[in-house]
């Protein structure tokens, strides 16, 4: 139980601070910490394989892409002052978020849930592999196709169009 509380602290505090900071790099680094906390939650829940996948994908890959995007899009113009509509948007966002939080907390707290008495049987990597290749083959193939298409799409979107020279020369 204390483990869960520590994990909650490591996950929630960096995420909350990251969403409030003005420095995008700091936000990204704090969010990476939060993702690592989520990986710790998976480990705590007994899904080792998932925890390592989370670290590998989020801390290893997505974080790199995010940081790269931040560095490639250094915004110099908007650093000066806070835009006038920002405060209103932030307030509205906080209100909506708080309302959703209240609804979710109320729903969770008022629902009687079965007490998890028996410890979960550890799902081995081998078992996961068998399950993946036998029952979920179609899903696996679809994910493979999706990842390939996403990779190609990302390359096409991000590649600078060399024919429209004046656009890049600015």
């Amino acid at each position, binding site marked *: *139980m204390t483990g869960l*509380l520590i*994990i*909650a602290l490591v*996950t*929630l505090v960096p*995420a909350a601070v*990251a*969403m409030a900071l003005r420095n995008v790099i700091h936000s*990204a680094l704090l*969010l990476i910490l*939060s*993702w690592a906390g*989520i990986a710790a939650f998976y480990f705590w*829940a007994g899904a080792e394989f*998932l925890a390592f996948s*989370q670290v590998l*994908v989020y801390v290893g890959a*997505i974080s790199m*892409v995010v940081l*790269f*995007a931040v560095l*490639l*899009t250094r*915004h110099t*113009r*908007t650093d000066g002052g806070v*835009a006038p*509509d*920002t405060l209103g948007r932030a307030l*509205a*966002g*906080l209100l*909506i*978020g*708080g309302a*959703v*939080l209240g609804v*979710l907390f109320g729903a*969770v*707290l008022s629902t009687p*849930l*079965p*007490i*998890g008495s028996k410890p*979960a049987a550890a*799902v081995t990597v081998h*078992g*996961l592999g068998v*399950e*993946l290749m036998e029952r*979920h083959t179609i899903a696996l193939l679809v*994910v493979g196709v*999706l990842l390939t298409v996403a*990779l190609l*799409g*990302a390359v096409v*979107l*991000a590649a600078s169009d060399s024919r429209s020279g004046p656009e*890049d020369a600015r």
Partner: protein
Amino acid sequence: MILTPLHLCLLLSSALFCIGLIGALSRSSSILVLLGVELMLNAANLNFIAFWRYGPNPAAGTGVLFVLFSIAVAAAEAAVGLALVIAIYRHQRSIRLQDARRLKG
């Protein structure tokens, strides 16, 4: 009213979801909006794992597999989303969402 571990897990995931929601709604940097959406996705994954762990049938790895697929989709989403951000930046010289309104009628 007894707080079971499952309750705590669900509270954790809903708090994370709301942090992501607030971030996605109130920030103007499109990268941070994308990261907020990413956080909401992660909160959903937490729920899958919580229900898998304390559900009636933890021996079946369905929850784990679902999260595995979800992580793969999230990776694809992040790659495409950030490529979009870079493409927007190339056209607008800014990644603020308010500036990307060329298509507004």
